[in-house]
C-alpha cells in the first residue's frame, strides 16, 4: 500500500478505518458503549484517540502509530505558551470550511514595543487582557501579546520582556530579526514557550539554534517569496526544528493580491498536494497596514481591520495586530468566532414555546423567529437581564424577523397557529403578546386573527428589559 492509499483524505475517513485498528474489545474504558461508537466519535473529532486506554499499551504500539498517522491533520498543530495559558494554532484538517469544521480559532496577538513608555506598555497589555464582548451569550476575547524590539538592543528587550511577563500570563510572540536580542528575550521567558518571530534568509541558523535550545516554535518569514519560504522550511526541518509557523508576508494596498494568493497557494499545497514543507500554520500581520503610510490613524486602523478578516477567511492561523480600538477588534473577533463554528449547525432552531426563569400567569409573552442567530440573540438578552418570561418561537424557516415579515414567512396566521399549539393560553391569564419592532406592521392582523392584544417591542432585543420596565404589566383598557 502506498502512503497515499493509507492516508485517506479526512473526508473519506470512515469509522471502520479507525475501528479496524482499535483493540475491538468493547471494554468501555473510554466511556463509550463499544469500540465502533468510539471510532465514530474519533472520526468526527469529538474525542481523541488517546481516550482509549488499551491503545496506549505496548501491545498496540503499531496500531496506535497508524491511527496517529491516518488522523493527522493536514496542517500541523503548534502549541504556543504552556499549561492553562497555552494556545494551539493550525491543526486544520481541510482547506474549505464546508468540508469539515475548522479547528483552533485564529488567536489575535496585540503588539507592544520595547520602546513604549512603561505606563503605556502596561496599560496596553491590561487592555488586551480585559478585552471582552458578550456575543450571543458567549464571551469573545483577545489572546496574545506580541513584543517587538524596535530598540534592537538586547538589554532593553530583556528588561521589557520581564515587565510584560510579570504583567500577563497570555502567550507571547517575541519579534526581532536580531538573534542576540531574541536570546535576551528568550532567557527571560523560556518557561513560557513563546513563539519566535522570525527566522529569515539571513539569520535562520542562529534562530534555529535558539528554537532548539529553548524548545520554542519558530516562525519562518519570507515576504512574498514562496520559493524562499519552502527552502527555509526544508532547511530548518533538516536542521531539526519541527515546530514551524509560516509567514509569507502581509502586504496591504497594492500587495494585497499577492498576499491573498500566497496564503491560498500555501494552504492548497499543504491540504491538497501533500506538500509537507508548507504543512504548517500561517501567520498574518495586518499590523503592516501601519507601516510606511502617511494617513490619518483611523484610515490605517480601518485597513488593518478589513485585512484581518480577509486573512482569516484565507487561512491565517494567527494574527498580529496593532490597533486595540473596539470598532477594529469587534468585527475581527466576531468573524473569527463565526467561521470556527460547525458548518453543520442548523440555521434554524426548533419552534415552539421557551420558558425563561420562573414565569407565572402574569409574566410577559414575547415572540421571535426560529432563525438561529435571531433566537440566540434574543435568548442571550433575556438571560443576561434575568427576565421571567415566555418566548414564542415561530417557524419562519430559519429566516430573520425583517426578511421573514417581508417574505411572508412570519404572518398573523403562523403566529395564531404557534400560539394555539404552544398551550400558552393555559399558562398565562393575560392576552398580551409582545412582537419584535421589525414586525410592527403585522400588529393589526395578529390582533384580528388571534384576539390577543399586541404590544410592539423594540427593533432590537437589547431593548426588551427597558420595554418591560416601562410597559409591563400593560394597562387594561
Amino acid at each position: 500500500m502506498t502512503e497515499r492509499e493509507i492516508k485517506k483524505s479526512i473526508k473519506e475517513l470512515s469509522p471502520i478505518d479507525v475501528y479496524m485498528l482499535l483493540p475491538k474489545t468493547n471494554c468501555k474504558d473510554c466511556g463509550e458503549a463499544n469500540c465502533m461508537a468510539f471510532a465514530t466519535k474519533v472520526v468526527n473529532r469529538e474525542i481523541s484517540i488517546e481516550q482509549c486506554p488499551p491503545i496506549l499499551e505496548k501491545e498496540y504500539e503499531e496500531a496506535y502509530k497508524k491511527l496517529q498517522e491516518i488522523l493527522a491533520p493536514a496542517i500541523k498543530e503548534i502549541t504556543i505558551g504552556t499549561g492553562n495559558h497555552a494556545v494551539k494554532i493550525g491543526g486544520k484538517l481541510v482547506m474549505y470550511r464546508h468540508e469539515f469544521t475548522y479547528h483552533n480559532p485564529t488567536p489575535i496577538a496585540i503588539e507592544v514595543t520595547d520602546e513604549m513608555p512603561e505606563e503605556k506598555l502596561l496599560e496596553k497589555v491590561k487592555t488586551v487582557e480585559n478585552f471582552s464582548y458578550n456575543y450571543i451569550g458567549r464571551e469573545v476575547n483577545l489572546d496574545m501579546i506580541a513584543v517587538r524590539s524596535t530598540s534592537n538592543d538586547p538589554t532593553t528587550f530583556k528588561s521589557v520582556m520581564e515587565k510584560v511577563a510579570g504583567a500577563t500570563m497570555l502567550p507571547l510572540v517575541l519579534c526581532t530579526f536580531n538573534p542576540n536580542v531574541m536570546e535576551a528575550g528568550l532567557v527571560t521567558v523560556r518557561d513560557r514557550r513563546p513563539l519566535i518571530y522570525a527566522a529569515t534568509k539571513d539569520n535562520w541558523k542562529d534562530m534555529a539554534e535558539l528554537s532548539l535550545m529553548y524548545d520554542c516554535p519558530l516562525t519562518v518569514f519570507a515576504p512574498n517569496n514562496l520559493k524562499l519560504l519552502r527552502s527555509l522550511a526544508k532547511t530548518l526541518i533538516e536542521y531539526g526544528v519541527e515546530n514551524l509557523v509560516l509567514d509569507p508576508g502581509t502586504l496591504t494596498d497594492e500587495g494585497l493580491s499577492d498576499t491573498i494568493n500566497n496564503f491560498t497557494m500555501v494552504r492548497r499545497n499543504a491540504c491538497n498536494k501533500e506538500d509537507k514543507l508548507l504543512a504548517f500554520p500561517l501567520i498574518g500581520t495586518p499590523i503592516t497596514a501601519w507601516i510606511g503610510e502617511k494617513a490619518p490613524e483611523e484610515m490605517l486602523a480601518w485597513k488593518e481591520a478589513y485585512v484581518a478578516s480577509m486573512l482569516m477567511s484565507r487561512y491565517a492561523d494567527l494574527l498580529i495586530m496593532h490597533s486595540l480600538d473596539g470598532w477594529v477588534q469587534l468585527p475581527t473577533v466576531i468573524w473569527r468566532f463565526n467561521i470556527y463554528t460547525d458548518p453543520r449547525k442548523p440555521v434554524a432552531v426548533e419552534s415552539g414555546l421557551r420558558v425563561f426563569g420562573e414565569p407565572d400567569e402574569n409574566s410577559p409573552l414575547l415572540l421571535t423567529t426560529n432563525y438561529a442567530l435571531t433566537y440566540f440573540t434574543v435568548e442571550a438578552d433575556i438571560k443576561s437581564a434575568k427576565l421571567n418570561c415566555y418566548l414564542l418561537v415561530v417557524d419562519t424557516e430559519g429566516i430573520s424577523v425583517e426578511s421573514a415579515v417581508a417574505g411572508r414567512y412570519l404572518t398573523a396566521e403562523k403566529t395564531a397557529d404557534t400560539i394555539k399549539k404552544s398551550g400558552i393560553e393555559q399558562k398565562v391569564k393575560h392576552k398580551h403578546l409582545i412582537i419584535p419592532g421589525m414586525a410592527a406592521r403585522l400588529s393589526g392582523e395578529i390582533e384580528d386573527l388571534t384576539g390577543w392584544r399586541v404590544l410592539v417591542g423594540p427593533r432590537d432585543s437589547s431593548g426588551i428589559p427597558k420595554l418591560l420596565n416601562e410597559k409591563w404589566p400593560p394597562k387594561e383598557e
Partner: protein
Amino acid sequence: MSEKKKEDKASIKISPKLLELLRKFQEVELEDVDIEIGDLEFWVQPAVAVPPPPKVVAPPPPKVKPTTILEEAFIPPIEEYPGSVLEVKLVVIGGATSPAFYMFENPPSHPPTVTLDVFDMKVPLPKAIRMHVEDVMEDTAAWAKLAVDKFGAEMVTVHLVSTDPLIKDTSPVDASKTIEEVLQAVDVPLIVGGCGDPKKDAAVFKKVSEVAQGERVVLSSLTLDMAEAGILDDVANAAKDNGHVVLAFTALELNQAKELNRRLYEFLPKDSVVMDLTTAALGYGLEYSFTIHERARIAALMGDQELQHPVLSGTTNSWAAREAWLKMGPKWEPRVLRGPIWETVTALVLLLAGVDLFMMMHPAAVKTMKEVVRQLMSTGKAKSEKIADWVTVKI
C-alpha cells in the same frame, strides 16, 4: 499519457459521480430536512478533481545540520475545472473559471461590481448612512443620481418598498413611473427591488418589465414562493419578452437554488439569471452565507450547471447587526466607523467567497470595496522591501 489527457479523464469521471451525489441528497432532503446541512458538507470535494499530486517525500532524519539554505522550488498548485460561471451582461458580471481571486490559476473574467441601494420612499436608516443621503430621501431619481455621481455606484438598485400592501400599496403603474424617472436620471444598469410580497411583486415586475423594455434591468427578486403561488411563469415571461434579467432568491439552501433555476430555465435564457443565495450580517449568520457561496462556486466549477450563475449579495443586510448601529459605550466608539466597517467586512469576506455583485450602501464601505477589488485584480505589485523590517518600524 500526457498530463492534459489524464486530467480530461479525471474530469469525465467526476460528473456522473457528482450527479449521483446530488441525486442522493435530494432524496435525503425529502425525508428529513434537518439531515441535509450535515450531509451537504460532503457535496463537492475539490480534492476529487485533483490529479495525483507529485509526491513530496518526507525528509530523512537529519544527519548533518545544513550550513546553507537548501534550495527548494515552489510550484503553484494549479487545477483545472470542468465548469465555469456564465456571464450575464449588465455591466458584464460573472464568468469565473476559478475560485475567487485565485490569480495564480485564472484571474476573474470581470471585476465584481457594486450596486447602491436607493428607496422609493423615506425609510428608517441608521444614522451613519442617513447623514449621507438625507437631502435626497424623498426623491428617488435624485438619490440614484447621488449614488452614481458622488459615491461611484456602477449600478443602482431601486427598492420599491412603498408597493408593500402593508405600507403604501403603491400601484404597479406608479411604481413603474419611479423606475422611468430613475432611468432618465442615471446611465447605469438598474436593479428593481420589490417589497417581498410575492403577488404584489409579480404585478409590479410585469409592469416595470414593459415600461423598461430593452433596458435590461434586474428584477429582484423571483422566488419559489412565486412558483408556489403560480405567478412565476408570468413574471419570467415578462422578463424574457422585454429583455430583462432576474434575480433568483433562495434562503441559504443550494437545493432550492437549483430548483428555482430549473423553473426559470423553462422561460429564460441561462444568461439572464443571477442568484441571490442570501446574505446574513456579520455576527448574524455571515458564516452560513460565506460557506454556501464557496460551496456553490466550487460546485459550479466542478460542473454543476444549475449553479453556474453569477451571484449577488445583499450586503446592506449587514446593518441588521446591532453592532453596526447600537450605542455600545465608549470602548466601541465611534459608531460612524463601526457601522461602515461592519458592511465592509461583510462585503470583503463574501468577495473572497466568490460573490460577483454587491448591493451596498455606506459610501466608505463602497469606496473600500472598489479599491480592494482594483488591488485584487492584479498581482506582481507587492513591494516586499516595504515590510522586510516591519518588526523594528516605529508606528
